[in-house]
């Protein structure tokens, strides 16, 4: 029973984490534009790389959360 309870909280955690990481990545991408404007080319490129990596990881987290959501719904119905 305890195991089930933990499972049910997994989806919101994943969703929240995914959204936080996505916001962070968007912030970093905006920062990269600002750095490029001020002429810090190297910093800007590094920020871009970090931002894109975070974006892909957030998409991965959100994808996982959809899978977890679907499986949880099924187990709730039964």
């Amino acid at each position, binding site marked *: 029973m305890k195991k089930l309870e933990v499972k049910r909280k997994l989806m919101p955690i994943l969703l929240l984490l995914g959204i936080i990481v996505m916001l962070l990545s968007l912030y970093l991408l905006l920062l990269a534009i600002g750095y490029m404007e001020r002429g810090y080319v190297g910093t800007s490129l590094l920020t871009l*790389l970090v931002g*894109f*990596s975070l*974006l*892909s990881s957030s*998409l*991965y987290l*959100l*994808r*996982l959360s*959809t*899978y*977890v*959501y*679907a*499986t949880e*719904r*099924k187990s709730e119905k039964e």
Partner: protein
Amino acid sequence: MRLELILEGAKRVVIAATLYTPFFTALNSVLTTPQLTTIGLEGLVVLSTNILIVFSTVLALLTGNIFAYLIPVIASTMSLGLSYLQVTILVFFATYLVLDTLTMVLRGGEVKYLRYSIKTWMRAILTPLIIVIPVFIAAYFTTHTLVLLFTNTTIQQSSLNPNILIILTSPITKIVLVLACVVYVYLTVERIAEIITGFIKPSYSISINKLLETKDIDVFYTPLSNWILYVSVAFLFYPVIYTMVFDILLVDVREYIVTHTPEVFSKYIVPFLFFILLVLLVRYLHTIIDPLEAPRRLLYASLTLLLLIYASSIKLVYPEKGWLGVIQPGFQELGVFLGKKFVDYGYEVITVLDLLFRILGVAP
């Protein structure tokens, strides 16, 4: 019943709004064509396309069939000679898809009242949009970036090295950049669409399959576009290794190739093939792909590189010292020799890439 009639009417209005201009253009050109014997093959193709547009527009207006609607949409974009996707047509097409789904949900007059929850209505509206939107965004992004790159890029010619100027102003660079951007945007948008679909219509079996599939779930850190990494690493090592192999160790082979084959082959094709080989080698050594095999491969690679350096430094001092070079290899001379060659070959590779794309007809 009444709602269905309204929807069917709305579909006809959308069709008429989309195909108004193509229909009348086609009709006009059909009516004003001269005799069939005087027009050539091209004229015949144009004439038949126009007749097709006219007929299928009428058919689409009468029946509201999706295929009868699609044919004039595609044919008109080709026959009007437009090289871009028309935004209005795309928007109308998306609207038509939504309306078509709604009428299919209503199931043409079989039952008097069919009650659906708001969730089902939302699904019926959102599902075609999710299919259309990624394509729409990718198409928009492509045209937008292409227009930006080909019209607005101005590079100050005086402040740059001429070699770099060639690279920056080359159309190939622009095409590659745009392609990379479009592929990345499309992949991202597709992922987002997948996530939205997963939340709108959760499917138990698909998600269980995905969760059980370890290959899809266990992801190592993979940076963007590994191939760019491979090419740049290979680009770094290329001049050194090429010089050691072809200018020092296999100098006789190179002489043979230069004297017995056309100039293009020895000057461009051999270095290019060597470069491709190096890129593939770097990919083979990439540690993330196969974490268990990686240390052994890296050991072999570094030993081979060391052996190559040792052998070439012996060969370089062989005319002076003879076999004494085995004990006193000329590392200093090798360094000087490599430094001279370093700049030339990098430039040559880029020239070859440019030439290759020009030959293939990718770039103007």
